[in-house]
């Protein structure tokens, strides 16, 4: 019992892997952890389904008032929304298992097609932002750790808190004002200009991630256009996460810098720079990988705001559009997809953490 008392309070930053598996090897850990995805997704699907139905059936929500009552009633009957809710729920679960997400009510597209189109845009934004976050957060965190309690450290810590305190849409607004309106360097909004979008549409087997497609086809005019559009959203969303990475790297590098083996290295004359970048940095990476899993959730939430700010036509932008149109079939599809993404990412992160650090596998 005494050992448990020693354990510091559960910090928001500290991530407890959700596995309950006891003992056993890595293989068993992965299997158990994999099956824990299922309840997570199931609960979120159930939650969203019933929350959405509390409002009423999707057809009345989307088109009520615009259609005469008898047509509306007929539509509802055709779609099967007049049956008991529990049957609809079971049917919905069955459809999800076969990969059928239904058809959107407002623009009558298969939800799965809508998800893959806009999902690529969101994926691109998240990758860009993650690059910014890692490129900014990790080096600055190492610097802050090395200059601990000096002015540089104080400045960087304030920067990290400021990153967290600034909502994405406000940093987006400031970036837009500075770089697009006053300096006129970068486009105000959008993912690409119309011409590039047309070029991209003609490509064979596009991946949907524009810069990747442009690189593959060797179209550097298009690539320039894509990058100039991508810079501001990536910075706005990336800085949000960069602050978290900075603080995490700082705390963990400080922790490892105090270890005996670092002292030993120092006594043998290893330079401070090398101590931080080589010796103290690598063990400090493990918690960062774990926290990255949680950051995905933060990032997806931030992506909704970033996409709206920059009119970046991805899942988040589309989610807001569908919500305003009260198209709950589409909303449900997007939310379920995001739930799956979050659950799967957390799974992957836990497995990677277990691969690196055997202590996690208990």
């Amino acid at each position, binding site marked *: 019992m005494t050992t448990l008392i020693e354990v*510091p309070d559960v910090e928001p930053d500290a991530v407890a892997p959700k596995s309950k598996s006891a003992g056993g090897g890595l293989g068993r850990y992965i299997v158990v952890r994999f099956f824990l995805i299922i309840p997570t997704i199931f609960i979120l699907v159930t939650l969203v389904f019933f929350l959405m139905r509390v409002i009423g059936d999707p057809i009345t929500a989307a088109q009520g008032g615009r259609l005469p009552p008898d047509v509306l009633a007929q539509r509802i009957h055709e779609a099967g929304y007049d049956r008991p809710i529990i049957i609809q729920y079971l049917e919905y679960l069955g459809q999800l298992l076969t990969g059928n997400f239904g058809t959107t009510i407002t623009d009558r597209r298969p939800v799965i097609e809508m998800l893959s189109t806009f999902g690529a845009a969101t994926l691109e934004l998240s990758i860009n932002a993650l690059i910014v976050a890692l490129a900014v957060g990790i080096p600055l965190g190492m610097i802050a750790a090395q200059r601990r309690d000096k002015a540089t450290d104080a400045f960087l810590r304030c920067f990290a808190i400021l990153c967290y305190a600034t*909502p994405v849409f406000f940093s987006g*607004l400031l970036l837009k004002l500075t770089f697009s309106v006053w300096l006129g360097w970068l486009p105000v909004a959008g993912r690409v200009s119309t011409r590039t979008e047309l070029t991209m549409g003609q490509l064979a087997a596009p991946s949907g991630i524009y810069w990747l497609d442009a690189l593959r086809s060797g179209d550097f005019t298009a690539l320039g256009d894509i990058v100039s559009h991508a810079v501001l959203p990536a910075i706005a969303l990336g800085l949000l996460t960069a602050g978290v990475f900075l603080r995490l790297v700082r705390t963990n590098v400080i922790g490892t810098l105090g270890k005996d083996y670092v002292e030993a290295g120092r006594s043998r004359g290893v330079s401070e720079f090398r101590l931080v970048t080589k010796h103290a940095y690598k063990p400090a990476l493990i918690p960062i990988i774990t926290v990255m899993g949680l950051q995905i959730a933060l990032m997806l939430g931030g992506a909704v705001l970033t996409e709206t700010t920059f009119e970046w036509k991805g899942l988040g932008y589309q989610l807001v559009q569908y919500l305003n149109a009260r198209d709950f079939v589409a909303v449900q599809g997007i939310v379920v997809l995001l739930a799956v993404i979050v659950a799967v990412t957390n799974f992957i992160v836990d497995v990677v953490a277990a691969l690196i650090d055997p202590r996690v596998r208990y």
Partner: protein
Amino acid sequence: MSTATIPGRKKSVLSGLPVISHVNKSVGLQRGMLITGLVLTGLFLLSTVLAPLIAPYGYSQLSDASGAFPTQQAPSGKHLLGTTVGGYDVLSRVLWGSQTAVTVIVVAVAMSIFLGVALGLLSGYFGGWLDRVLVVIADAIYAFPSLLLAIVMSIVISRGQSSFWGGILACAFSITVVFVPQYFRVIRAETIRLKAEPFVESAMVLGASSLRIITRHIFKNATRTLPLMFTLNASEAILTLAGLGFLGFGIEPSSAAEWGFDLNKAMADASSGIWWTGVFPGIAIVLTVLGLTLVGESINDLNDPRLRGRKRAGGKARNKATAGTDGMNTGATTAPEPETGSPEAGKA
């Protein structure tokens, strides 16, 4: 910074006194951060209380005795921070906005604490299937993007129409759903720890009822960290509220002033170089969140065993903590290992 005063003050945890003891304990940079945070938070609360007195106009006022307000007017003598596209006075809306923010935070955090603490105590104390179900649900909700959850909730609750209280309650409920799992996790972990403590066992032996043990013995000990969580969550609540407002799922401009909503309207202005409609509400959000975060972080740091030697319950441990105070810079070497997530694995 004598050892005698601190334990005495620490006893009244909920009365707000811990902040004072933290200021006393802090040194140098840490003290600067804490005081900056306190000042910013103070300003925020002050503008909440004084908004009716110091705001030049009402939050939904569109005209005064000399006629209708101009729209999108740059900052001038009459409108210190300019006017919005709808003709509202920016300064007035920024000031009134703090009132909305405080109301939402207080309602949301109060509800989350009530629900989270109650569920956490029950779950941790009784265990069993209830505990397992609640943990799985809390984990599922915790992992999901909080803003999305809040959006879905606000649509369900408000269904589009939003009066002042309707909007406030919708936002508050949405934020509550996000926060309950956090409080639940912390309180549950504490309860499980406390349940095995000798004083709880002796209460059981004496024949105290479960209700009495939970309310008298565990509750007071498990809720020690709540004030800290409150400050940390308050800033998150403001960001969630602003996010909801920005996406258009918040409160209507005629029923209350809300910073996120104003930023939403300002987005279109930005393209034409009109900066004052967005920058000021944005700064208000940043400063408020910054203030609350600085206070929360500093208190967290001051309680952190890695920076301050051992913390932990009561007076005996306190003496040790103060002994380590002066050696703040060396604290890390003697402190426990940085968390790698593994110590928690066994508990979860």
